[in-house]
């Protein structure tokens, strides 16, 4: 649409705070603007909103670019692709990411599905802690019968958390 001559084949839509910005370009204009070549254009800006690729820098100290110790992913790679390298990148680029996530999402904390193993883990842990407190009390009051029962229960819970919780 830039040249108004050829059919637009490259369509960019940017939605920010409910405002839609649309750009339609023919292939030649897109090439001229380097949009076809993601390396030359900050795809991160395209995907995540303008300024996103810069925001990630906010965690870096002057002169020393952040590199993910796990996968070697850098700031520049993010700018190029709009994607992260590995799960650990979330920790590496945390400071910059948090600001970005805030503008992108409804909130800054996950509230939704939790893998069953993890959900169970927390539940079981809390129960074990509770039982351990009772055990200490039982020992303190010299109720050894009760202490033995609690000890067995804790042992069973540690060995097979799923079965005990389900039971």
């Amino acid at each position, binding site marked *: 649409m830039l040249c108004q001559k050829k059919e637009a084949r490259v369509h960019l839509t940017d939605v920010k705070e409910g405002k839609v910005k649309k750009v339609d370009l023919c292939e030649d204009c897109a090439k001229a603007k380097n949009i076809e070549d993601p390396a030359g254009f900050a795809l991160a800006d395209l995907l995540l909103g303008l300024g996103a690729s810069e925001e990630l820098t906010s965690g870096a100290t002057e002169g020393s670019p952040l590199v993910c110790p796990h996968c070697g992913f850098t700031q520049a790679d993010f700018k190029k692709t709009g994607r*992260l390298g590995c799960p650990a990148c979330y920790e590496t680029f945390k400071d910059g990411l948090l600001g970005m996530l805030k503008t992108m*999402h409804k909130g800054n904390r*996950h509230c*939704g*599905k939790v*893998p069953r193993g993890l959900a169970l883990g927390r539940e079981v842990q809390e129960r074990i802690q509770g039982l351990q407190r009772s055990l200490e009390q039982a020992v303190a009051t010299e109720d050894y019968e009760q202490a033995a029962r609690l000890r067995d229960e804790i042992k069973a819970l540690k060995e097979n958390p799923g079965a005990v919780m389900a039971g």
Partner: protein
Amino acid sequence: MQLHEFLTPADQVAQRTGPGNRIVLSSRVRLARNVSGFAFPGWAKKADRQRACDLLCEAVGRQPEMQGAFTASLDSLSAMDKQILVERHLISREHAAKGAGSALLLSRDESLCVMVNEEDHLRMQALLPGFQLPEVWRAIDRLDTGLEQSLEYVFSRELGYLTACPTNVGTGIRVSAMLHLPALVLDEQITQIIQAVNKLGLAVRGLYGEGTEALGNVFQVSNQMTLGESEAEIVERLSKVVAQVIEHEDNARARLLEKESKVVFNHIGRAYGILANAHSVSSKEAINLLSLLRLGIDLGTLPGTPRALVDELSILTQPAHLQANHSDKLTAEQRDIRRADMLRHALRDVRRPIVPPPPAPPLDKPPAP
């Protein structure tokens, strides 16, 4: 097994129905998941990507829902097979571009499709005809819970499921409905509707997803935000918005029939005229005209013609589907001719549209007692 032997023929796909499929063509939920021990697919080394792919395919293939599934490495599929999967909305265009180290698993009933090593290690989707968002969420939730038993997902208490792109982090969910909205387009209300939907933080896209045009008056409405809102809340919010859009489309249809019936019947009549008589039709033209024919059926102008016929043709007129029925490689011009031949043949017994007696009968609603 070859893909064409596995896939349900288009005429049977078109027979699948769901609640409200007059306007809601399909409901879909996809989840993005990654497993620990590997970089994201776009950054992983080739050998690691292959190792992850094997591990994931094995785990997915073991799920009860995936018994009898079609499993294929992307490098084993021809370009045409991949394009057919895109045209059926089973894989993304991005996934179709992948090769070795990426795979797909498609359940026997085609309602579940898992892309392995697309942008994330797993992109799994449930797809059902009509308006049934809670049902597709339940279906994919079940598959995901089954997979948790054997896979260790990367999950953070704070940020939820970690994904390659920060736009998907949290629930990793995208809930979407494919809507056929010809009256809102004809009545020029569609831009307003899209803006209103955007204001609610939902995206409106074209027929083939992100960055595509709205061909055939088909629009895909989906959530954009994945962090800070639960899956159930997203499903409910989207369901409410889709219900409202349906109401607007129904109102637009009623308004057009009442105030501008000539405009509507003109569009439908011309669409029928071209589809039933032309000798060269491009795929884009076919999709757009078939949309109007579908509207014609909904409005009672084509009594006796089932909606499934138009839906079948909408699948078969797409480029790869058309090519698949011919052994020789067709040029675009040859395809346009074959497409027109097929359309004329399919519509040979369809009588030309009539003007239904006003007022138009209520659509899809049970008759008053």
